[in-house]
């Protein structure tokens, strides 16, 4: 016992370091770059109020108002277009206008904060688009604000398709160049060329189908066993992002619950 005490006293600094690092790293690993939970909601509320104020000061008031009116009109038109479509998903799509009040685009695990929250109908899991291009999805909300993670986050996979009836793969950003992602698991037999659209499948319930992720980049695909990995040029310019729409397919929760049922019943 005395030896143990002596050991602790002798190495107290390094032991405290290890305990603190263990706590910090377990926090880091458990969050995997996704800011979620009660504390995040609290911080989101406090800080976003300040960021919203800064954003307001920096705006030219009239131009901002006009922009937002246009944005709301756009959202209404998109909703109406969705209602007139025969697509099951599109029938149920609604669009909410929002403004990005804070974002990080230069890290490997980026996020953005929007000035719309639960009071405006924003829900966790909603897809975010800008000028018709997919941006990311909402992962946490408060009454007034919401936080989302963009396509340029190296922990996320997105279900994507090349063209309207092309091969389906897993779209992912692996860090580094913020203008391109990589579409994995495309069969070697798939026919495509640089410039072809890469669009959402709607399978994840985050986006409706046929929202643009980007285009096949003008680079050679990489061979990965039986599959190809195809570089994709993002359609969105993340760093200049300001106004966005949130889309609700209303199916994300249903898909999650179905997947849960399947996983539980699987042998």
């Amino acid at each position: 016992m005395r030896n143990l005490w002596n050991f602790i006293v002798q190495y107290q600094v390094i032991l405290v370091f290890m305990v603190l690092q263990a706590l910090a790293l377990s926090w880091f690993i458990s969050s995997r770059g996704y800011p979620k939970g009660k504390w995040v909601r609290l911080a989101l509320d406090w800080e976003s109020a300040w960021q919203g104020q800064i954003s307001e000061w920096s705006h030219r008031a009239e131009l901002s108002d006009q922009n937002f009116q246009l944005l709301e009109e756009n959202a209404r038109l998109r909703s109406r277009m969705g209602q007139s479509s025969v697509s099951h998903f599109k029938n149920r799509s609604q669009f909410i206008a929002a403004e990005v009040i804070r974002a990080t685009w230069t890290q490997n695990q980026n996020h953005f904060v929007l000035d719309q929250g639960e009071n405006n109908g924003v829900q966790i899991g909603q897809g975010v688009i800008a000028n018709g291009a997919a941006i990311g999805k909402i992962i946490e909300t408060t009454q007034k604000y919401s936080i989302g993670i963009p396509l340029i986050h190296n922990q996320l996979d997105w279900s994507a398709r090349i063209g309207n009836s092309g091969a389906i793969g897993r779209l992912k950003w692996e860090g580094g160049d913020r203008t391109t992602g990589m579409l994995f698991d495309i069969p070697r037999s798939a026919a495509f060329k640089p410039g072809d659209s890469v669009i959402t499948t709607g399978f994840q319930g985050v986006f409706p189908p046929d929202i643009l992720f980007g285009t096949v980049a003008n680079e050679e695909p990489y061979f990965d066993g039986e599959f190809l990995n195809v570089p994709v040029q993002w359609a969105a310019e993340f760093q200049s992002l300001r106004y966005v729409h949130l889309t609700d397919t209303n199916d994300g929760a249903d898909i999650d619950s179905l997947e849960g049922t399947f996983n539980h019943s699987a042998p």
Partner: protein
Amino acid sequence: MNPALLIPLQLLLTCALQVLFFQNMALWEGYGILTFHTLGILLLPLNTRPIILMLVSATVGAVVDLFAFGGGLFTSSAVAMGLFLPFINRLLAPREGYEVTDEPSIKSMGIQWFSIRTIAALLIHNLWMFSLEAGRWNLILSGWGKAVTSTLLCWLLFAVVLQLVQAKGKKR
């Protein structure tokens, strides 16, 4: 001002400025990330016990993590810096040791001492932070590049801020 009040005030102010302003600044495509809260840790008295230094660093890092949605990244990096800071202080100590009145500032210790200490401590903080943040081996090198450039930028910022807020005095 009473040091017992000055130290918490310094920590609070640097944290607040980091959370409210500097965390939103990413210059040169991510190669210029400012971590202003580390200035509060660097300005802790030279005779601070290593364990206290680490606990304060962890608290400062956790506050920034909470508001910058860092998920433990800043806490871990600040603790790493807190571990090495006493060693750096010892390496840079004058032959006769530090005097009771010595403060870790440009005014008290001179620009050379301040620069070496700040750059060494920030390098540890930033190398740790960008290596963790990279998350993949193929991004480590660019992460280290970001660590070096961000360190130099922070050092410059700290030097300018301290020169502006601290009155000129006799240098050692």
